């Protein structure tokens, strides 16, 4: 286990930000931590990077009990293996992109030719090579976000923690960041990714923890979570000349719960994860199929089902810059 957080509690006066939270991350995994505003994602990250002291709980990183200190008190050997991308921009605005990367590289003990090589590489993968000499003050929001990530990976950490790295940026930069995280994970970096955009988590993460009010309310792959919370999936099938007998045949397919016909459209409800679409199509082969659509449960549905709340309230709910 690369990271093991057990039964962690954190209170701010009357507010319980983390309520006996337990998190586990395997090496090589991309864990998505999903939750609405105030769920406790950042608090959890602050504790597992040693920035905040927990009120109770145990934390093991890389198989080692790191204690509970706060204020950045982890041993250097542990710190070296972690890269943190804070939720808000953490850059020196008047130092150039290159100078920022060099600075953080040096703090992690990288110097000289090796440092130069890594800075070049990092600028390259983040698509910032052309603006290396410019100061982040003059960057677009998306460029700043990318540099914010760059500063956390210059030392090639084993565990990369990203706290909502795509808040308030253009789709292009967002895609760039998602591709990048995917790539770095493929190269062996373990990733902890927090977000309240479920599409991102669905796309990137091998496993998801859904948090609400300081607790994990669901844990598993997107499919597993969906299966355990949402029991029905919907398939619609359009047939040129439908007959009621087809309704009966479809109903006999394994996993199908119900099937109704309305004009040319069959609406089929089916147990989640039964994977019976091919079988249904097979049954319908004698007919002329005009169209098929299958709607699988999204994390949004899952979240709604679990908490009765939407993940994001109204708009994007992020910062504007």
């Amino acid at each position, binding site marked *: 286990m690369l990271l093991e957080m057990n039964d962690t509690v954190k209170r701010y006066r009357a507010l319980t930000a983390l309520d006996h939270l337990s998190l586990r991350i395997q090496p090589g995994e991309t864990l998505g931590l999903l939750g609405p505003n105030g769920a406790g994602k950042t608090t959890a990250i602050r504790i597992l*990077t040693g920035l905040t002291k927990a009120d109770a709980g145990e934390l093991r990183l890389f198989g080692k009990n790191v204690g509970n200190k*706060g*204020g950045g008190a982890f041993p*250097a050997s542990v*710190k070296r293996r972690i890269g*943190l991308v804070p939720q808000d921009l*953490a850059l020196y605005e*008047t130092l150039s992109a290159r100078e920022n990367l060099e600075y953080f590289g*040096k*703090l992690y003990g990288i110097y000289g030719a090796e440092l130069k090589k890594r800075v070049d590489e990092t600028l390259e993968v983040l698509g910032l090579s052309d603006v290396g000499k410019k100061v982040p003050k003059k960057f677009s929001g998306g460029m700043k976000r990318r540099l914010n990530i760059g500063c956390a990976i210059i030392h090639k950490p084993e565990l990369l923690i990203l706290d909502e790295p795509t808040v308030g940026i253009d789709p292009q930069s967002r895609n760039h960041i998602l591709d990048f995280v995917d790539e770095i994970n493929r190269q062996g970096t373990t990733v902890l990714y927090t977000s309240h955009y479920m599409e991102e988590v669905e796309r990137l993460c091998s496993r998801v923890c859904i948090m609400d009010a300081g607790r994990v309310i669901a844990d598993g792959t997107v499919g597993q979570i969906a299966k355990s919370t949402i029991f029905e999936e919907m398939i619609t099938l359009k047939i040129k000349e439908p007959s009621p007998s087809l309704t009966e045949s479809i109903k006999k397919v394994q996993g199908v719960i119900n099937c109704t016909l309305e004009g040319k459209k069959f609406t089929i409800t089916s147990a989640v994860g039964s994977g019976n679409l091919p079988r249904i199509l097979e049954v319908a082969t004698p007919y002329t199929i005009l169209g098929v659509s299958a709607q699988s449960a999204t994390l949004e549905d899952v979240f709604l089902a679990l908490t009765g709340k939407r993940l994001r309230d109204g708009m994007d709910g992020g910062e504007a810059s």
Partner: protein
Amino acid sequence: MTNLRQFSAVFIASFKYCWRNPVAVAVLTAFPILIIFVLGNALSSYMSPDYDFEPIPVAVAVAEESGLQIFLQNEEVLKFLDLTFTDAKTALELLENDDVTIIIEEGEDGKLIVTRPRTAGMNAQIATSVADSYMQTSKAMEYAIINSSDFHEITELMQILNADISVTETPLGKRVPSAIDYYAVTMLVMILLYTGMNGIELFNKSMFSETGERMLTAPVSKPVLISGLLSATTLTSYLQGLITFLFSYFVYGVYWGERIPLVLLTLFGVTLFSQAVCIFLLLLIKNHNAAMGAAQGIFWTSTFVAGGYVKIDFGAVQQVFDYSPNSLAHTVIFGAIFGGNESKMTFDLCLLFAYTAVMFVITFLLGKRRLA
């Protein structure tokens, strides 16, 4: 080895960061240079005679033939002030009716008392500055006189002072202190106090903001991080002061005496003290902007009080002000320039550094709690 390399990384990046903060550089370097020039020369003959300036109405309630009265009737002063000599009671009436902007009185110990409305405008500021410059000059004179055993020399100095306050050489080859000489010291001490703001900015950025999270999760030890930051902000601040110092020396011809190393050491003490106070305020208030405001308030007040022209009856508290870091620095620097009591100067300088050390210890202890 690692520590040293990390220290230099922190130092270099922070130093660049400080100097690239355009507001700080402008406020702490360019502004004082301008102020010294404007205030220091306001009474010198640099002003063109045809300068279109409406003299500011001022009531003066001082004993006749006093040094102050002679000074005020100086041709240069009259360009700026429209004086009404009267008694204290009438003066107050004039002020209340807005007929004058300020009242200048002379206290028993020769100090100036300036009375002005709470909502003093620009003109009252200028008039106060003029009155202040008399105080500044006479203070500088005091230092020169205390150390002079030759009575003849003193009277000669006094005569020259009263006749013309611009820069003059005495027959004895001694330089007569002028307003700019005093202003330069007061201003330099003041801006060095203000440069502690560099410290607030840098420490907040590097330890308490998001960037701070990044620094604290990096494998750099706190002593290395803190000493790197502190060196960068202290050096930046000291250099800002030094630029003003050199400017005043070479461009304005301010007289800094012959013991420049001692002056520079004192200025360094002020710089360090200010860093300690500012970082302490940041830790205490936990808010960057509020800490900035508090620092400004404290330094402004201490400069005002140490400036000496406001005679507030603090009683025993006045003694405390005499031992304020600001006053200590003034004593040592004037002593170094015009000659002063060596043992008092040594004591004052040591006290200044002792304050600084104490401040750092308190800050350190508070910081340990804050970061836990």
